[in-house]
């Protein structure tokens, strides 16, 4: 297993549970949270090196969660995911505090490459 853990936060439970399964299949420890509140509960219990957060969620939005994490868990790298995007597949702007932003749907390889990049590891950027 890789020496880091990833927390996936998205109100789409089917998406995050499948991503957790696929990441673990590739040797990456991962946990899922379907809201901002549950994400903070998980962060209280366990340390995560990377958090993948959906921008648009009911209740606390991805930006709200990002703001809190910048203060409470500054060491946790944040990758944002969103259904909104531009034609070339990139977000118009990456909010301050986030490492990058990924547009749905994305491949698992693209996600893993961003995770490695966020952690400063050698990785290949998947378009």
């Amino acid at each position, binding site marked *: 297993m890789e020496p880091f853990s990833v927390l996936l936060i998205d109100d789409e439970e089917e998406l995050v549970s499948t991503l957790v399964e696929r990441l673990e299949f590739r040797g990456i420890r991962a946990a899922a949270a379907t809201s901002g509140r549950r994400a903070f509960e998980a962060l209280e219990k366990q340390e995560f090196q990377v958090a993948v957060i959906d921008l648009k969620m009911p209740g606390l939005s991805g930006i709200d969660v990002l703001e809190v994490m910048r203060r409470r868990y500054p060491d946790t790298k944040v990758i944002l995911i969103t259904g909104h*995007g531009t034609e*070339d597949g990139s977000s118009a702007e990456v909010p301050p505090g986030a490492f990058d932003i990924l547009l*749905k749907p*994305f491949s698992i390889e693209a996600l893993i490459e961003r995770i490695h990049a966020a952690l400063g590891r050698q990785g290949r950027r998947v378009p």
Partner: protein
Amino acid sequence: MRLPIGRRRNRDTDDPEGERRYSRIRRYTVILTLVVALVPLFVLTGVNYFLYRRSAEAEIRYNMSRDLLNTSRSLEFVMEERLSVLKLLVQERTLAELSDSRMLTATFQHLEQSFGGFVDLGCINAEGIQIAYTGPYQLLGVNYREQSWFNEVSLRGVYVSDVFLGYRRFPHFVIAVKRAAGDGSFYVLRATVDMDLLNKRVFLPGMGRQDDVFIVNREGILQTSSRFHGQLLERCTIPVPSYSPSTEVIEDLDEAGVSYALGYSYIPNTPFVLMMIRRRADLLAQWVRDRTELLSFLALSTVGVVIVVLYSSRSLVMQIRAADQKRVQMLHDIEYTNKMATIGRLAASVAHEINNPLAIINEKAGLLHDLAAHSDEFPHREKVLKAVESIVKSVERCGTVTHRLLGFTRRMDAKTEKIHLPSLISEVMEFLGKEALHRNIEVVTDFPEEFPLIESDRGYLQQIFLNVINNAFAALRDGGRLELAVRTAGPDQVVAVVRDDGVGISEENLKHIFEPFFSTKGQFGTGLGLSITYGLVQKLGGRIEVASRVGEGTTFTVTLPIAGPVRSDYPV
């Protein structure tokens, strides 16, 4: 036909109510302005007219009175002079002296030399017998006792006769002065005066050709010939006005109905009335010239005012119409902007909602792939892996579509960035690639390998070329040909050409192709696409031109600046 852009059809010309409104505005403007401008002009001219006329008539009266007074005084002087000299003679000379023909002749010669106008001179005793006479006629011994003048001079002492022919057979009048003798008898000195004397006094130098000056007696018998109202000793056709001690000027109509001014003066101590007649038409000739000038000025001023008012009201209505058109155009643009923004928000929402389930499908399919790939061999394993790969590819395609859709609808505000125009047109074409395939439309591109990046707005350019290419697709028949080309035009501009060999556009429709709500697609077209395209190109600092022939095809040419300013004031 190649059409330079910049002309927009007047939508109001198709609106009868709008036309009536502009006609009404123009009518009211014309009427009000004409009233304001012309009423003072007419009033002023009218006042001037009557003042001029009054002044002219006063001048006529004054001039006539002056001429009449001068003539009258001249006559008075002549008569008075002769009367006085006769009175002096009859007082200074005795009857014996006056009865002496030799002395009377000498006296007559002195009179003639000093005063002139005398024809003869005679002395008549109380019985009426001319006892002495000097003159050209044989009148010595003639008895005047039964004549009325003799009786009158006997009674009144002085007598001036009317003009008559008498024994002499030429017009003359008589002045007679009586002197009483100490024994109760009397004698009379009688002189005959030639009428030429009066005629010379009546016709003063400077009188007009139309002036008629003559003398009548109080019964209306002409004492001198009149130009227009009778000859000597005939009855004057104009009645003698009633007595007035001063000169008078009156106005009247003659027998022919011609208006005239009559001046008259009763000559004191004579039966004569001096009359001066001038036709009003002649007197008013100067006034008529002044009046013509005044009325010409009024007519010219009126014409000038009318022309200016018509022109200015037309200009005013045109400006109002242009402002209305601009306002309507802006409303249309705002409406379209709102519509596009609404569609954009809807598309963004739909894309987002689709992207989430797409992501789930993608991950589930990926999980299936992972499981299958790492599982032991099972029936149809390869088929399952292929099916999963197919699902992932389809998801990827869907993702491309939704991302592109979001790209189109994300921003409405102009934002410049470096853009590779051939790539942008290719991306737009991808939207229509399937339609081209299904309709067997051949798409030919002529994009140079090296092409400068332009500074422009991506969203606007996408809309521009999507609209133009969509328009070409609508015109193309199945199996048609679409050509897309870009080229540079000098150091500052690039040109994109979209050419189809479709049905073409008629000359009449071509004039209106960029006007809002103009459509040849009937209920299937909004008539906004090319109008908005025109506005977007302008906003990007470029221009769009169209050339077309019916049955041969249409070419749209979009010229853009390489670093053109974005006009943020233009509503989209």
